[in-house]
């Protein structure tokens, strides 16, 4: 049968991959990083760089030898007509291989056996091993796809090798890069300083007064960090939702002619590196800030440090997160079918009455969504509280200082991270349970005719006023940012200068040609490289996941969806902490590499890729895929030739978003950067710490422009899917 031969072909392919992994590629992780090719020197006999087969041939790492059995096991059944036997053997080979691979990886570490009982059982090993490298990863992939192909041959999902493989792949990476680190973190929270599991320690740390104290209610003191975070997040969620709604209304319902500009303006904060907004706010509202001084002068008041603490964080977060609410709500507001409102008006309702009884109830779920997004973003925000927090401690910064501060308590960091995670997960869960897929969006896809009615006047004017204030404020803040990069020393010497740009981005010529002398180049190139690598990976993983969710049905799909969307609710600081705990030791030894940064970005941003994919795929007529299938194309071919080309807008959105996020992220990055892979944001935080606002701001401004041009570039690269074109053009060549 056809599909049997397809399965056999898949097995051949993965066997070759596995053989390459076992016999050709270096088995262990290379000290010089994944992309280095220094291993070619001394290969294949140098034990640091040798493939597994060469190691065994030299009598080393003999425990790797049994892996060859499951690798070659499928040879027995390949091409076998008996599907039952074929699938059983593949499943055995795949799962046994995976199990043994990980078992040996976890059992034997850098100091021999990782657990004492192993030493007792097998005697001392007297040898050690490092983390998985190319070879091990390839073999792991081969085993995984043996397993999925075997399951597919059982008839799961119509025996579709590609779909089962994709599901298996996504589940595996989500398990390894989301659930495994979180589990590691939980276990570290449960251990005391000596590594002994102890519930008492956990309870003590968890119920600490510093976290849950309520002194702020009765005395002139701060409350626990958990309450601080919660309080802040609720206010920010509510405020950004209101502001976002205001902008959405102004943009769509006011007849305001420059709403495109408004949209552009609201996108700015998304591409702004962290700290910058915080710095600008200090320069405006700090004790010596321009506005503070001016107001104090005019009103003859004593300037104060009012901005440090809740007010400052609030302003900064509202500037940063309102655009997110706006983007959610503009879709919702536009989605309300004009004919509904027109119907209401023909039923003799006034504009105000229509707005109150039709429009507003229809956008209510959107409001809840925007609120929860603002809530989660505020909870996870790290940069603003760091700069503006004053004595107002929040969970995200507290986690950071628990790890890096003089207290240096990973257990406490883990406990705080768990509390933060509990908050965000509860919000995330509430959003999903409460709103579910309920949507009042009334777009039908059919031409709806009609146009949106304008807002009633009593809504319009307040909206205009709020929007104007915000716009002026945003423009001022960004004006400050650009200006701040060009003055000698802010607050002291306002002579204009290019000094900061030169320090950061000087380019010189030396014997070898162009030489990037500026102090920022190193982190700049690293950031670009990592962001540019992470973006397409995020898009691919996101779109494959979206495809599985929208187009395929399988048992446990709900859990699959939950798992893939989960990382959205995991704050960056938590990711950072858990990655350090999980990926520092073999077999997954990733700290200090660029890979760990790329992986953290891929999984942090994956939910957005999934969302974009789901949105755009649900608009694709399912009969397109079915047509392709009945025309004899495989699911994989259908995915490549039909779905992907039609998903360009979603791909673009995912690419842009993950690229931008990778360039501006800080909260996870700060834990994961290393000497070789230093990121722009962590460089900037160093300058801020050092009082070099000039360079920090100059660098940030540069990043903003780089991101803008990158967005344009992506737009050009991905292009617009051509499904219509003017008849006057004729095509001369046919593909």
């Amino acid at each position, binding site marked *: 049968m056809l599909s049997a031969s397809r399965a056999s072909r898949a097995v051949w392919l993965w066997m070759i991959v596995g053989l390459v992994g076992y016999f050709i590629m270096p088995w262990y992780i290379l000290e010089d990083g994944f992309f280095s090719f220094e291993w*070619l020197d001394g290969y294949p006999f140098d034990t640091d760089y040798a493939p597994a087969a060469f190691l065994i041939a030299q009598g080393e790492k003999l425990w790797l030898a049994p892996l060859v059995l499951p690798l070659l096991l499928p040879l027995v059944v390949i091409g076998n007509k008996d599907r039952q036997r074929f699938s059983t053997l593949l499943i055995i080979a795949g799962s046994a291989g995976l199990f043994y691979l990980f078992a040996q990886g976890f059992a034997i570490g850098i100091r021999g056996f990782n657990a004492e009982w192993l030493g007792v059982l097998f005697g001392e090993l007297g040898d050690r091993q490092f983390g998985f490298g190319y070879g091990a990863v390839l073999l792991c992939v081969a085993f995984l796809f043996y397993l999925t192909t075997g399951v597919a041959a059982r008839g799961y999902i119509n025996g579709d090798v590609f779909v089962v493989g994709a599901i298996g792949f996504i589940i595996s990476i989500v398990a390894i890069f989301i659930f495994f680190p979180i589990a590691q973190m939980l276990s570290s929270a449960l251990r005391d300083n000596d590594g002994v599991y102890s519930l008492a320690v956990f309870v003590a740390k968890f119920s600490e007064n510093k976290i849950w104290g309520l*002194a702020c209610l009765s005395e002139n003191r701060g409350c626990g960090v958990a309450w601080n975070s919660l309080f802040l997040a609720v206010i920010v969620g509510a405020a950004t939702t209101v502001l976002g709604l205001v902008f959405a209304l102004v943009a769509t319902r006011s007849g305001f002619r420059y709403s495109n500009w408004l949209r552009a303006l609201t996108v700015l904060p998304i591409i702004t590196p962290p700290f910058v907004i915080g710095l600008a706010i200090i320069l405006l509202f700090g004790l010596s800030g321009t506005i503070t001084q001016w107001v104090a002068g005019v009103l003859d008041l*004593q300037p104060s440090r009012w901005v440090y603490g809740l007010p400052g964080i609030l302003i900064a977060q509202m500037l940063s997160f309102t655009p997110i609410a706006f983007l959610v709500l503009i879709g919702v507001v536009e989605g309300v079918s004009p004919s509904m409102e027109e119907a209401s008006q023909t039923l003799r309702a006034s504009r105000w009455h229509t707005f109150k009884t039709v429009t507003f109830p229809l956008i209510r779920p959107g409001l809840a969504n925007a609120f929860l997004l603002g809530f989660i973003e505020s909870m996870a925000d790290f940069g603003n509280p760091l700069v503006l927090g004053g004595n107002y401690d929040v969970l995200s910064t507290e986690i950071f200082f628990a790890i890096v501060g003089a207290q240096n308590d*990973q257990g406490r960091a883990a406990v705080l991270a768990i509390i933060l995670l509990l908050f965000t997960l509860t919000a995330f869960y509430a959003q999903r349970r409460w709103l579910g897929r309920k949507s009042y969006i009334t777009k039908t896809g059919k031409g709806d005719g009609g146009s949106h009615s304008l807002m009633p006047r009593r809504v319009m004017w307040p909206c205009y006023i709020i929007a104007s204030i915000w716009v002026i404020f945003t423009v001022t803040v960004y004006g400050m940012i650009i200006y701040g990069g060009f003055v000698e020393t802010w607050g002291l010497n306002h002579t204009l200068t290019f000094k900061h740009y030169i320090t950061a981005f000087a380019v010189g010529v030396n014997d070898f040609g162009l030489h990037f002398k500026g*102090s920022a180049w190193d982190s700049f*190139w690293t950031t670009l490289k990592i962001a540019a690598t992470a973006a397409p990976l995020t898009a691919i993983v996101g779109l494959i996941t979206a495809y599985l969710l929208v187009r395929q049905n399988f048992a446990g799909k709900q859990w699959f969806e939950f798992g893939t969307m989960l990382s959205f609710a995991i704050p960056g600081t938590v990711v950072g902490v858990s990655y350090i705990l999980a990926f520092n030791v073999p077999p997954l030894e990733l700290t200090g590499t660029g890979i760990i940064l790329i992986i953290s970005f891929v999984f942090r941003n994956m939910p957005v890729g999934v969302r974009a994919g789901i949105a755009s795929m649900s608009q694709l007529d399912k009969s397109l895929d079915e047509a392709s299938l009945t025309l004899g194309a495989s699911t994989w071919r259908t995915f490549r030739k039909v779905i992907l080309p039609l998903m360009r807008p979603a791909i673009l959105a995912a690419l842009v978003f993950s690229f931008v996020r990778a360039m501006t992220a800080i909260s996870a990055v700060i834990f994961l950067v290393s*000497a*070789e892979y230093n990121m722009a944001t962590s460089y900037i935080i160093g300058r801020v710490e050092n009082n070099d606002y000039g360079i920090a701001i100059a660098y940030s401004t540069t990043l903003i422009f780089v991101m803008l041009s990158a967005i344009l570039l992506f737009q050009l690269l991905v292009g617009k899917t051509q499904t219509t074109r003017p008849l006057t053009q004729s095509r001369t060549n046919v593909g």
Partner: protein
Amino acid sequence: MKLRCRIAGAVTLALMGSAGHTIAAEKLTYYCSAQEDWCQLMATGFEEATGIKVNMTRKSSGETLAQIKAEASNPKGDVWWGGTGDPHMQAAEEGLTEAYESPMRAELHDWSIGQSESAGNKTIGIYSGALGYGYNEEILKANNLPEPACWKDLLKPEYKGHVQMANPNSSGTAYTTLATIVQLFGEDEGFEFMKGLHKNINQYTKSGSAPIKAAARGENTIGIVFMHDAVKQAVSGFPIKVVAPCEGTGYEIGSMSLIKDSRNPENAQKFYDWALQADVQSRSLEVKAFQVMSNKTAESSPQAPDLASIKLIDYDFTKYGSSAERKRLLKKWDDEVSTLPR
């Protein structure tokens, strides 16, 4: 850029075949806890001097200790240079670092050797700086405040809301302050001092030098910091006046340690010896680091606070550097001071 070069290199290598046994470049992974430009200077300086390729990570001493601890079972760093001595002492105590007696020891100040010996030679002093505070003259004047000169001056009610120090829980500087006050006034009176100070504090910052930076930018009036940090702001042109408190003060020793079980131990030792040379230490002035260097013949800036003219207490590094004492003091501070209303 780098990647492309590497690929090109790899291709060349592959073409040359196994005959061309090129020597893999010598490497050193260097953790640095001093200011960024100083760290850079040391890295490039060492590369120039030895041809060994240096991979540098700059993180605060607390962060670096956390990292070394996390990597203990698989160390990635070779040498840890800079940052206040306590985390280095702590690392020594926890067995994360290697003992080493450098041939350069003869050229060093006694305080440097003393600190090294108290840590079983697992760390060594490279610079030292005294604690004190600085204030923004303009803001002081604008608020009609008297000029402080002693620790006890800071308790005056008119300074309420004008003093900043770091949180001893997160900053080594602030812990040094706490330990200094305890040693200077005795534990009971010292804590009374901290309680009084608490009333005047407008913010406990996370990072040690943040208070003086805030003062420099006009966001704060008085910042309790290491004096060399305050000097640096003054030299940068900010209206900062540096004060060596009249009662006397404690000091830190910035240290250097070799990481245990590292991957390039020989290069690490090379760096260690090199970093103790007088000419290397003199270069600290290029980056406005105004600490006193540990090599007796290293130059120091005329603007740097002269340790000889400051009344230094006999700081007990062994006692106050130990985890147990640190934990006890911090807990006491947390329970008795930080919970007080302001």
